[in-house]
């Protein structure tokens, strides 16, 4: 019952984070299912923490890191989630799948183009903040980077998005 509640309340946010990070709906959906299975197995840990959303987004982020490490083992190249080498192993990262290319709207294309302009570290910080509503101190702890670096990534990332998203502003 708890997992069902989590899926209803936070499933879309977790999926959104995974899709925006990977750019691949198929991979995101696989990881999404794994997030809730892991969340259920480690639910005792959740009861010691606070927000369910933050708990699930943390698991999603760890799974992405595990996936990146797995890809590194296969491809024998150095890959870290916040690193540009991610793009070497995920060349289709920002492109929509071919069967969806036609139905993808102009706005979504602009979004992917805008996200591509960010470094992966900036993208990760902004998406953790957006989907997980995590404080910056927790983001710094999660991604194991200094707080000032995280703040800088957020500020510069939003600066880079300003121009590309200006015509999408509400």
């Amino acid at each position, binding site marked *: 019952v708890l997992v069902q509640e989590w899926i209803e309340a936070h*499933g879309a946010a977790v999926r*959104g984070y995974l899709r925006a990070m990977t750019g691949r*709906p198929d991979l995101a959906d696989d990881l999404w299912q794994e997030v809730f299975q892991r969340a259920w197995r480690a639910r005792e840990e959740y009861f010691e923490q606070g927000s369910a959303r933050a708990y699930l987004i943390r698991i999603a982020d760890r799974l992405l890191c595990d996936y990146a490490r797995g890809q590194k083992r296969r491809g024998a190249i150095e890959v870290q989630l916040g690193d540009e080498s991610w793009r070497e192993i995920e060349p289709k990262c920002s492109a929509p799948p071919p069967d969806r290319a036609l*139905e993808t709207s102009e706005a979504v294309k602009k979004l992917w183009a805008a996200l591509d302009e960010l470094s992966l570290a900036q993208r990760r910080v*902004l998406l953790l903040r957006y989907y997980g509503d995590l404080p*910056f101190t927790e983001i710094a702890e999660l991604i194991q980077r200094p707080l000032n670096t995280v703040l800088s990534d957020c*500020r510069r990332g939003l600066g880079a*998005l300003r121009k590309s998203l200006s015509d999408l502003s509400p």
Partner: protein
Amino acid sequence: MNRHNKLSASERLIAQLEAATAPPDAHPQGLEGEARQLRTTWRALDAALSAADDEFESGARCAPVLPPARSSHAAKRREKRFGLLAGCCALSLVVLLTWFVFLFSDAAPVVQSGAPREAPRGKADAVDANGLPAWNDQLDQRIAIAGETVLSLDERRPSHDWSALSLLRRVEAMTDEAAGGSL
């Protein structure tokens, strides 16, 4: 003093950025200058991500997979136990059926001694020296003789012994008699 200033500057920056990147439906107060611009960009990002989510959600939503109530290891063990039990039941049933087949095939009289016989197919009108019908059907005659032999074996048996060993011995005796030409 410098350290204190640096800390407060960092705290100010955190407060500004957290206000600018607060949930889009929130209305943070006191945003000025760069923070206000960042807030506008943040809301634009929200609009774009929401539009993208709507588009993707239309097709590719998977059915949620709930974690199993019990571990797969326990389920396998349960299946194995059930399979073993079913196997034992099936084996017992086969043994019981075999025993019943032996029991009834042996107990059912083939020919009742002294009882009037039903006329077989191909019965002749004439009778033999014993007053029995003179059958033309040689197979029926052989069956009748075999039946009488089985009955005589039955009478020689000391009691109703239905063990597999006694059944085997009787079969051997019948085989010997048949080999000796009495059947």
